[in-house]
């Protein structure tokens, strides 16, 4: 069971892939689909690995992604 989650605002993404590259547990990958501006937003490929560290949120220059831990 994943400790955390990432939420992606697809339409705000500019496809820089900082989140994909620097995710410590490699939860994300760039999607092959486009958003309405023609960028490839990230896609969650390994949701169970997410620790909710929010490093993706720290790196995202477009404020389009953030991570958090589930409240338990």
């Amino acid at each position: 069971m994943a400790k955390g989650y990432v939420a992606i605002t697809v339409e705000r993404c500019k496809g820089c892939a900082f989140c994909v590259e620097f995710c410590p547990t490699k939860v994300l990958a760039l999607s092959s689909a486009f958003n309405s501006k023609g960028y490839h937003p990230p896609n969650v490929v390994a949701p169970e690995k997410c620790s909710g560290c929010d490093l993706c949120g720290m790196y995202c220059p477009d404020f389009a992604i953030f991570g958090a831990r589930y409240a338990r």
Partner: protein
Amino acid sequence: MSEMECVMEIPEDAFNPVEPFLRMDRMPHIWCAGCGIGTTVNCFVRALLNSKADLDKVAIVSGIGCTGRVAGYAQMDSFHTTHGRAIPFATGLKLANPELQVVVYSGDGDLFAIGGNHFIHAARRNMDLKVICVNNMIYAMTGGQSAPTTPGHATTSTAPYGVFEPAFNLVSLAEAAGASYVARWTTYHVMQLARSMEEIFKKKGFCFIEVLSPCPTLYQRRNKMGDGLEAMKYYKKASKIRHGAPTSECALTKDGEIVVGKFVDRDRPDYLELLRSQMVESLGERYAEPEMACEDAEVTCSL
């Protein structure tokens, strides 16, 4: 579109922690894909959150340029000044209301080329300002002309055969001019940068942080250095953390080592302290503390 749908369970009340600090009606912002200015804003917001700063007492001042847009996107008291004049405006703001935490958030061209003199004199006086300089090594908004920070041999739109002028070493300049706190990070070092920004909120005097940021559209592209992600990988590979390193040895080159870390952290009396002690010395008992101009003014915050 089904591929893009998140398979994770997201709580309904989840929100991006950066959003309350930004004017979301202005998003998406103008910065290019792969530009690092947004990343520095993330770090700044985390620093504000961690230091539990009262947002009514924080003001952001920026000049002109890509980084100058930060003031327009920040959901707090902010001012977008004329080119190069962020520090003089911030000085006035600080002197009129010393309770404010005044943050100058601007680019290398604005702070060191057009406003270079203001920078060194604010550092000399040790004005209590927090200066965050996002250094993308070029005049990005105007079309990629050479800036005083462009390293040698880089190609720019005004130097098609390569820049031959020596560049400024910003951290050394800040230390020599008298800054109390000098640090350099890159947009790759998000955690360290956020911690450094938190530190300067608690520090009195002139604080300066240089943040290296990719400029994929003008600097990286013209120099065949790839996109924003390539620049981030280069920062990861080439940077070495050396706290307290002599700043004169920390000059930046086009593709060499990047020395990062906290170089200077010293205590000097700041401008207001010096002014007060001079007044007390000259006037003796006739000296009275000035009344705060904005004490009665009602400040409301929409947050």
